[in-house]
């Protein structure tokens, strides 16, 4: 699926096959996808359709069986693990469904974690991090531990952590899947704000048609493929059209 912007991510004929006993299980079957710079894309599909696998492939965590993946102009899997990790560090921010915060660190430290990992000293940037926390509505929770926060708050910390290095690409794996509907709405608004104000490329994996409708483009994944006529762009993106595609694909 092509984009009219400069692509930041480009997948060409990506296939992922798992060995399941005596037969192979093809999870992704020839995916072609481009994500343009500053584009907000939703990825929808039923459970087991390969959404998370696709996200991992884009993140450089799962080498495809065949096909090429380009991130920021670099062929991701032509690099070795070390270089791939450095590329991920520089280009990608992650928001996970299950938060994945370090329980022993407080909120501020969790937000600063990617900088520590990058070998930077974030101590001079505390004001920036607090600003980020203010943006996600958690300025007053800077020194609380994850065990003291609600699901929605945890997800907002995760978003702040994903943004701390200002990565050009944000990968969000069902960020509203583990929070209440109201909290989910607030989180989606935050994504929209980030996209609007920071001009970030966002790939949002979701089950929820209302969440998906906030994107500029919606891509549907069915049994490891992106079926023809299953991409909604621009003005096509609304809840009713998304629902009709889902019905057409029997999702």
């Amino acid at each position, binding site marked *: 699926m092509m984009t009219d912007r400069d692509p930041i991510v480009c997948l060409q004929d990506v296939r992922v096959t798992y060995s399941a006993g005596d037969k192979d299980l093809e999870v992704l079957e020839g995916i072609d996808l481009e994500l343009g710079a500053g584009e907000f894309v939703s990825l929808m599909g039923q459970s087991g359709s390969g959404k*998370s*696998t696709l996200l*991992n492939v884009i*993140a450089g*965590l*799962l080498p495809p069986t065949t096909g090429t993946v380009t991130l920021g102009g670099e062929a991701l899997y032509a690099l070795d*693990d*070390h270089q791939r*990790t*450095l590329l*991920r*560090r*520089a280009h*990608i921010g*992650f928001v*996970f469904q*299950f938060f*994945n915060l*370090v*329980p*022993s*660190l407080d909120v501020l*430290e969790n937000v600063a*974690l*990617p900088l*520590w*990992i*990058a*070998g*930077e*000293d*974030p101590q001079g940037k505390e004001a920036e991090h607090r600003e980020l926390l203010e943006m996600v509505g958690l300025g007053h929770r800077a020194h609380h*531990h*994850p*065990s003291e926060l609600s*699901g929605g708050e945890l997800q907002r910390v995760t978003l702040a*952590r994903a943004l701390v290095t200002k990565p050009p690409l944000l990968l969000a794996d069902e960020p509203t899947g*583990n929070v209440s509907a109201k909290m989910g709405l607030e989180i989606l608004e935050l994504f929209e704000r980030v996209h609007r104000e920071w001009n970030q490329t966002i790939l949002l994996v979701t089950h929820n048609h209302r969440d998906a409708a906030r994107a500029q483009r919606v891509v549907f994944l069915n049994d490891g493929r992106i079926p023809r006529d299953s991409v909604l762009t621009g003005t096509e993106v609304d809840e009713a059209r998304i629902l009709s595609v889902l019905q057409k694909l029997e999702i």
Partner: protein
Amino acid sequence: MKLAFFLCSRNWRSRRTRQLTSTLGVALGGALVTAVLTMDHNTVIFKASKERKKYAEPDLEVFPTADRAASDELPKWLRSLPGVEEVTPVAMVPVSWGDRRGNTYQLTQVLAELDRVEAFQACVLDSGWEFTATGLPESPVWITKRMAKQAKLDVGDSLQLEDQHFVIAGLLKKLHLGFHQEIALTDWSSSRTPVSQWKGLRYWLRLDDPQNTDGFVRLGKAEGFLAQPPPTVGTTDTPEDIAMRNGLTICALLGLALGLFIVLHTLLMTVSERRREIALLHGLGATRRQISGAMLWEALVQSLLGTIGGVGLGLALAFVCGKVGISSIGAARYPMVGVPWTAVAVVAATGIVITLLGTLAPIVAARRLPTARILSPMGLETRRSKAATFRWLVPLGLAVVLGILHFLMNWLIEERAAHLARFALQLASLLAFATSLVFVAPGILHGLSAWAGRLLQRWRGPQYHLPFRNVSTQGHRNATAVCALMLVFASIYCMHTLTECLKDEVRTLGRQAMSEMVFVHHGAARAEEERALVREMPEVATLLAVQNETRHPLVIRGVDPHSLLDVPSIELSSDERNALQGLAAGEGVILTHAMADRLQLRVGDDWEVSTRHGIRRVPVRLVSDRFGYLRPDRSYVLLDGARVESWFGENRGSKTWSIVYPSPGTSSAALVEMLQASLSPARIVDGTTLFRKRVWNIDVDFLVFDLILMGAVVLAGLGMLNSLMIHAHQRRREIALYRALGMTREELVPMLVREGTLLGIAGAGLAIVLGLPSSWLAFDALKKVSGLNLVYRPSLGWTLACVGLCIVVARVASRHPARTLAGSNVAEELRYS
């Protein structure tokens, strides 16, 4: 039961490394104990059998006084005693013989009734005439095969002993005559010296009832002579042998305790690691009993497999030790003749029972897990209460109170009675202190890593922040690994300090001024002449003529007290000076600590000794080991040399060696050269060489302790590896997150190794804090049990080595989990909650 079996077998499959390391821990501990028990068992059998063989087989040995020795009445009187089956006189006299090439041989002339020699199994003939053969040459002598070979002698050759001429009638292949290595066996009737002048005269008695010797011993005492069973070893272990055997057993038991600790620690960690799984099982309907059963089975399988493997490995180790010459009483090759199965079975059963009892804590922990909270998305986050943070104060306070009580014991109870109570209090205090350290470990870890992290971050860069921050924030989790290191290395520190004290005690005896001494072994015939010559040399400051008298189990050393007072390089205390002056002025003896302990005598007590003039009572003037350089033994009595002659008769052998001190300005090396030029072919050894040789022998004797320490270090590594593997399992998600956020494998492994290093540093510090009082307590106990005059000297070098070793073990042990984590599948780990 089915569920228990299923879970147990599944854990063995899925957590193989951890199961194997903890089983290996028990196996290694069990192997150490089995090896030591078997080694000791076989050493004792071997030593006893060797010693029994070493001496002839009289039921009793009687040493007569000089006046009775001259009389023919004594053997008649002995024969007339009821219960005496046979009596034969034997004399053992030190003589020397020089061959044509100028070599001097020190040997013992044994005068015996030849027809009785074989009856008492004194020696075994190899070739030549039988002892009772007809047609023997005139003045026959039998010598050892070894001496004949060395001196190139054969049957029929002549041999001049002192001023007597003999013809070699045969060669002997085995001697059963105690410590006499080379002998010349001659007929009793060949003696031309009056019997009364033979210092080595004794009568061998065979009794109707060999067990009934006590009555004869008492009778001998009443009649004024010494009657005692022949020297055998099983009954006469020296204090140093006892100390070494006890020390070995303690070390081996510590090894087993460490192995068991690893299993218990693993089980406890398992609960922490598997709490979600346990909660899930419970949520799915498994009863608490089923879950407990599974854990019990797991512990049983680990301890059983470990014990069986450990016993096998221990037997193999004992066999190898016997082959290479490491025994429980020093360097000796022993044959594997038996296994102390009862002791091994008791230790194995105790190990298994302790393991099963030890599972109670993890089982209780597992039963108490709050299922609903654990299964919630955030799981169970432990937040420590303030009360829990300060609970280490309770055991520490207890340790202080018990410590104070221990010192008050001196005033509260009479000294001897207070000994046991004091030891119990010390032990309780130490345990309380160790408990407080276990509680305080997370806090120390938190503070240390936060402080060190800040320091290193400022110094070396931000890459040092994360590992230190991880250790700091996960102090409670890491504390288990630190405590494991602390306990293991405190034990190692304690064991090594103890063995060093023992070694040091042995070395100290030989160290005093030995570097300046020169030891001269004279030919017996020329001893006086040579000593006079040496005394005349301007390069010689002092000459100590040392006399030996062995009255088993007593070793009596005679020396001129004035000479001892004049030894230039030994500073004597006023007590020692007074005691030596007292020795010179009148009767009195100085005992070594070991001898005083053996004889149960103190300064001022009377020492009772059988002399040629009857029983004498001599006051003990001093108990000191300061004259240990006179010979390496620790058990001997020191008295005026003049009295040795008058009490025990002229002893020609006693005059065969001297200690010579160079005068100021003369080096001992120059003196050695000078003496060699003047006294050839006398054997001259400088003190430094002799001391080095003694130290080497001591080090070889203590090799077995070093082997146990190596085993303990491996155990420490296994324990640490196990802990870190469990931590790695718990931290899979966290580490996967680091990887997802951009940490490379190359950055991850050093980070985890740095964490391990920090744990090693904390563990080492706590190990020293605990090891110091533990080693002092063990030292004090050993001193009391063995009666050795030990001095507690914790070494800075060993303390640093222990810290270094602990850090190295921690670093090495953290590599495998670090690599495992670095290789884990990030996408999979992050996928599920």
